[in-house]
C-alpha cells in the first residue's frame, strides 16, 4: 500500500520538476481548450538521434513562420519515443489523435507496426504524412524523403570511386527492421554488382546510437583487417570522434549518408571523403509546410515528394557548414 502511494507521489513530484525545468513540447499547457489552429504530432524514430532533433528544429521553424504568415497558430507536439519501437510509435499515433491533433508527421521505425494506427487516424479525420521512412501500404497522404534504393546505390558508387573499384567493404546498417534502411542496403548491393573488384564482407546491424555503431565498426575492423571500405547507410558512428583516431584514412575509406556537424571532421581528415547529406532539417520544415497546404489550405500535395541528397566533400565543406549554421545547428566550426 505504502509502495503504491509512494509511486504516485514520486511520479507527480518528479513530473512537476520535469515540467518546471523543461522546455516542454512547445504546445499548449493543460487545463484549457486550445485555440483553434493546426496541431501537428511529430513522431520521429528516436529522440536520441541527432538527425531527428534537426527535423524537429525545422518543423518548429516552419510552424513559427506559418503562424506569423497566416495568423493560424501552428503547434508541434514532439511525441518521439526515446528509442526505436514501432509499437510505441503506433501507440503515440493513437494518443495524438485522442488528444486532438489535426495531423501526424511520422518517420516509421516499422511500417508493419504503424500502418494500422495510421489508417485508424485517417479514418478519424486526422491527416498523416510520413518522412524519412515510409509506410507505403498505409493511407498516409504523402511521403517526403530520399529514394532509398538510389541512396544506397549512390553510396556504393561513391565508395567504389574512392577505392579505385577494388577492395573489401562492409555495409554498416542500423535498425534491421527499418524499411528505409533495408532498401538502402539493397541499393548498395545492387550497385556493387557493377564492381567485380569489390567484395562485400557482410552487412552489420547495430543499435542506432553513435557509440554502439562506432563499437561495431571497430569490432568488424579488428575481425577483418583487410577491410578497406565502409558503405555506411547512416552516419551513426561518425557522430563520435573515435574512428578519427582508430582508422587510418590511408587504408580505409568511408562513404556515409548524412552530413551533420560532428561528421564533418571526417571529411576534413579524408577518412570520409564523401558524405551524402540528407538535409534533415527539411524533413521537419518541408513536411510541416506540406501538411499546412493539405489540411489548412486544402491544396493537393503530391504523394511522393523526393528529397535530394547533398554531396559534401572538402570542396564544398565551407558552404555546407554555412547552411547548417543557417538551419540553427551549433557545433559547426
Amino acid at each position, binding site marked *: *500500500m*505504502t*509502495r*503504491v*502511494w*509512494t*509511486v*504516485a507521489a*514520486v*511520479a*507527480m513530484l*518528479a*513530473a512537476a*520538476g*520535469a*515540467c518546471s*525545468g*523543461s522546455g*516542454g*513540447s512547445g*504546445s*499548449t*499547457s*493543460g*487545463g*484549457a*481548450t*486550445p485555440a*483553434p489552429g493546426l*496541431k501537428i504530432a511529430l513522431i520521429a524514430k528516436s*529522440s536520441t538521434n541527432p538527425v531527428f532533433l534537426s527535423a524537429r528544429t525545422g518543423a518548429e521553424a516552419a510552424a513559427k513562420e506559418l503562424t506569423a504568415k497566416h495568423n493560424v497558430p501552428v503547434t508541434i507536439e*514532439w*511525441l518521439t519515443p*526515446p*528509442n*526505436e*519501437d*514501432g*509499437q510505441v510509435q503506433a*501507440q503515440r499515433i*493513437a*494518443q495524438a*489523435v*485522442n*488528444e*486532438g491533433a489535426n495531423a501526424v508527421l511520422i518517420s516509421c521505425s*516499422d*511500417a*508493419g*507496426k504503424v500502418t*494500422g*494506427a495510421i489508417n*485508424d487516424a485517417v*479514418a478519424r*479525420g486526422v491527416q498523416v504524412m510520413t518522412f524519412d521512412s515510409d509506410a507505403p501500404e498505409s493511407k498516409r497522404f504523402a511521403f517526403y524523403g530520399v529514394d532509398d534504393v538510389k541512396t544506397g546505390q549512390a553510396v556504393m558508387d561513391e565508395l567504389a570511386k574512392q577505392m579505385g573499384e577494388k577492395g573489401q567493404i562492409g555495409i554498416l546498417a542500423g535498425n*534491421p*527492421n527499418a*524499411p528505409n534502411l*533495408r532498401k538502402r542496403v539493397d541499393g548498395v548491393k545492387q550497385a556493387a554488382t557493377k564492381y567485380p573488384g569489390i567484395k562485400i564482407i557482410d552487412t552489420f*546491424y547495430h543499435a542506432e546510437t553513435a557509440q554502439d555503431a562506432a563499437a561495431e565498426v571497430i569490432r568488424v575492423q579488428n575481425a577483418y583487417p583487410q577491410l578497406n571500405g565502409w558503405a555506411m547507410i547512416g552516419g551513426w558512428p561518425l557522430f563520435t570522434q573515435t574512428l578519427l583516431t582508430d582508422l587510418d584514412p590511408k587504408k580505409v575509406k568511408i562513404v556515409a549518408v548524412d552530413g551533420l556537424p560532428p561528421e564533418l571532421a571526417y571529411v576534413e581528415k579524408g577518412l570520409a571523403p564523401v558524405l551524402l547529406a540528407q538535409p534533415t532539417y527539411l524533413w521537419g520544415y518541408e513536411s510541416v509546410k506540406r501538411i499546412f497546404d493539405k489540411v489548412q489550405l486544402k491544396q493537393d500535395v503530391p504523394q511522393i515528394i523526393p528529397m535530394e541528397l547533398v554531396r559534401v566533400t572538402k570542396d564544398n565543406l565551407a558552404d555546407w557548414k554555412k547552411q547548417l549554421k543557417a538551419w540553427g545547428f551549433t557545433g559547426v566550426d
Partner: protein
Amino acid sequence: MLSRRLFASSQLGLLLVIGLLGLVLTLFAGSHVDARTGATVNNFLNSYTLIQTATDASFFAVMAVGATVVIVSGGIDLSVGSIYALAGVTTAMILRAMGPADPAVTVIAGAAIAIVVGLVCGALNGLMVVGLDVHPFIITLGTMWILRGIAFVASRAESILLPAPLTSVAKASLGLPSALYPVPMLVMVLVTIVGAVYLTRTVMGRHVFAVGGNVEASRFAGLRISRIKIGVFIASGLTAGLAAFMGASFYGSASCGDATGYELYVIASAVVGGASLSGGKGSAINAMLGALLIVLIRQSIRSLHFDQNYEWIIIGAAVIVAVVLDQSSARFTRRRLATSAGTPTSS
C-alpha cells in the same frame, strides 16, 4: 468471499492511486474540439484514450502476471521480452509459410504457435535453472539474448506481416464505435483473473508462495521444488507467448526487435504492485494494476505536456523510492509488532 480476497486493501490502494492520477489528468490534460462532431472532448476522459491506455498496458500486464508467479517463487525472468519477440516472429513466419487459410484456422493456429513457443521457452528456462542450478537471473539473462538472437537469425531481421484475420480478431470492436478496440483489455482482465485464482485459490499457487517464502521449509514439507520452479517459468513463458500473439495480431506485424526492454517494465509492474523480489509476496491483480499505473504515469507525462525526455527518470525514481520506502515500512511494522510482543528483533 473470493471477490473480497481478490480485492484486498492493497488493490484498493492501487485503484485509488490510478483513480487519483486519472482525476489529475481529467482536470489538467485539457480538451480539444473534435474535428468531425465539433464537440469539446476532454483529452483524457474519453473512451478512446481510456481504452488506448488499457490497451498499452495490456501487453505488459499479461506478461507481468506470469512474471509475478516467478517473482513470488523467489525467481526472476528477464527473458520475457525476448520470448515475446521469438513467439511473434515464429507465428508470423509459420502463418506466412502456411499461406491463405480459413480465418478461424489461421487465428487458432496463430494462437497455438505463439503459446507453444512461449511454453517451450519457459520450460527451457525452468529446466536450465533447476538442472544447472544457476540463479534464474543469469539463466534468463542468457536466454534473453539467445532467444532474441534466434528471432533475428530466423526472421533475417525482417518485419513480417500477420494475416488479416488475426488483426480482425485483436481489433474487433465488439459492438463499440469504430477505432475502439477492447479485446487486448479484455484478455488482460481474463489473464489476471486466471492468474489471481491460480495463485490464491489453488494448491499449486500455495506451493509457489511456500517456495518463495522459505525454500528449505518447503523442501522439508515434502514439496517438489524442482517441479514448482519449472512450472513458474512455464507460466511466465505462457503469458509472454500469449502477449506476443495479442501484440503481433493487434499491430499487424512481428519483428525480432519487438518488446526490446519490456522485461524491465514487466518487472517494474510486478514490483510496483507490491511483489517482493526476495519471493513469497505478490499478486496477479496488483501486477496488472501496477502495469496500468506505469502506463498511466507515461501517459501523464505526455498528456500534461511535461518534457517526455524525463520519462525514464520519473519511472525509475518512482520504482526505487517506492521499494525502499516499502521495505522501511515493513521493517517498522515488524519492530512494532515485536515490541508489542516483547521480543528482540533483527533488522
